């Protein structure tokens, strides 16, 4: 059989097969194919939010699970994320047009002295995929960047990331300053990064330690919902 005959024509697949194929392509980090799939589904009349959740987030959730279970490693996750980013770039303006409801608002950044942003970029993408609006303030952020951004963006959640043992204590500096300013309880504080752990998160007064992007989304959803319920009942 020739190579040409082997080639899969995405537009010839039915919806179910196409979504399944897009998940495979996302898993394999095939950005062009994922973008093509997104466009085909949109042409078939799928709502942007449905494309996002069923094809992209669904696929990325499998990637996240296999990363956690040691089946996939960082390079493969980055390639998958890059493919998802391609799809998101098509969907984002459409989602904004359709005025999809925001689940919550998050400011996220890497703490002062730390330039590692792979983790926080993954979290940003997964949070956006889950319906959050995210302001990613990048790397090497002093305390005032976090606090100013959280106020300016009217955030529900403040997320901090660190890759180094030497920079992770700075998260406490940020939380202490929030306490000092009497604004600590205005925000849900989530922390993450390779050297962190549950105990560290508790010790510095964060609301939760998130070991990966999937956990960050779970915790964020759960805590934002709880906060809304408390406000509604209060």
């Amino acid at each position, binding site marked *: 059989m020739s190579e040409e005959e082997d080639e899969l024509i995405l537009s010839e697949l039915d919806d179910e097969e196409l979504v399944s194929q897009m998940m495979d392509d996302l898993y394999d*980090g095939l950005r062009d194919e994922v973008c093509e799939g997104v466009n085909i589904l949109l042409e078939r009349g799928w709502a942007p939010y449905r494309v996002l959740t069923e094809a992209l987030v669904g696929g990325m959730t499998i990637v996240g699970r296999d990363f956690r279970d040691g089946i996939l*490693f*960082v*390079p*493969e996750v*980055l*390639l998958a994320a*890059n493919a998802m980013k391609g799809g998101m770039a098509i969907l984002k303006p459409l989602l904004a047009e359709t005025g999809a409801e925001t689940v919550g608002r998050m400011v996220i950044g890497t703490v002062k*002295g*730390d*330039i*590692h*942003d*792979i983790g926080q970029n993954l979290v940003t993408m997964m949070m956006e995929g889950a319906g959050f609006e995210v302001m990613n303030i990048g*790397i*090497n952020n002093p305390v005032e960047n976090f606090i100013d951004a959280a106020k300016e963006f009217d955030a529900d959640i403040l997320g901090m990331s660190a890759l*180094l*043992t*030497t*920079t*992770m204590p700075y998260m406490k500096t940020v939380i202490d300053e929030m306490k000092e300013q009497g604004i600590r309880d205005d925000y849900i504080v989530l922390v993450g990064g*390779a*050297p*962190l*752990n549950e105990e*560290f998160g508790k010790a510095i007064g964060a609301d939760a330690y998130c070991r990966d992007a999937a956990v960050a989304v779970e915790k964020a959803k759960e805590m934002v919902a709880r906060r809304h319920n408390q406000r509604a009942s209060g």
Partner: protein
Amino acid sequence: MTTHVPDDSTLRDDGFSAQLAGSVLLIACGALAREILDVKDKNGWDHLDLTCLPAILHNSPDQIVPAVKAAVEKNRSSYDRIYVVYADCGTGGLLQAACDDLGVEMVAGPHCYSFFEGNDAFAARDEFTAFYLTDFLVRQFDAFVWEPLGLDRHPELRDMYFAHYTKLVYQAQIDDPALTAKAQDCAARLGLDFERRFTGYGDLERTMADWA
């Protein structure tokens, strides 16, 4: 007496043991084997035995604590004193906590890049856009950096990892022009400026002297 040092791939994957009925045991990262044995031999500290865990644990810090704990427990009854030749090494304080529980000392500092230079001097630089390589890591660059980051298969990922770094600092423990040339090549492959900084053994040697 000069202790034989195994090749780097053995140090990387299997670790190494030179337990010769000394009274003091050093449990170390395999990436430090040559340096530790050099200091030991140079000073004639024949009462120091060495056992090294696989250096590749450097890439999986969550595995360091259980491996160190197991090594301490395995050897505890055979030695008067045991010391752990790891710094924090990305364990987020968990190795220090484990050593405290076990009642053994470890090397102070965040990682070997810091103690080779000297922890105080390293901290004073506040040089957070530098990517560091030691002698061992220069020799093992492909196994510790290039391949685990997938750059052999996907060179397009390089800037996702290294865009915010500005330079590669080669911390030289010994003078070796071939290693310097290799380190320079590593910097070029990562698209970073290059700086060579001779550190010698820094706080490692001082710490070993305290323990010996």
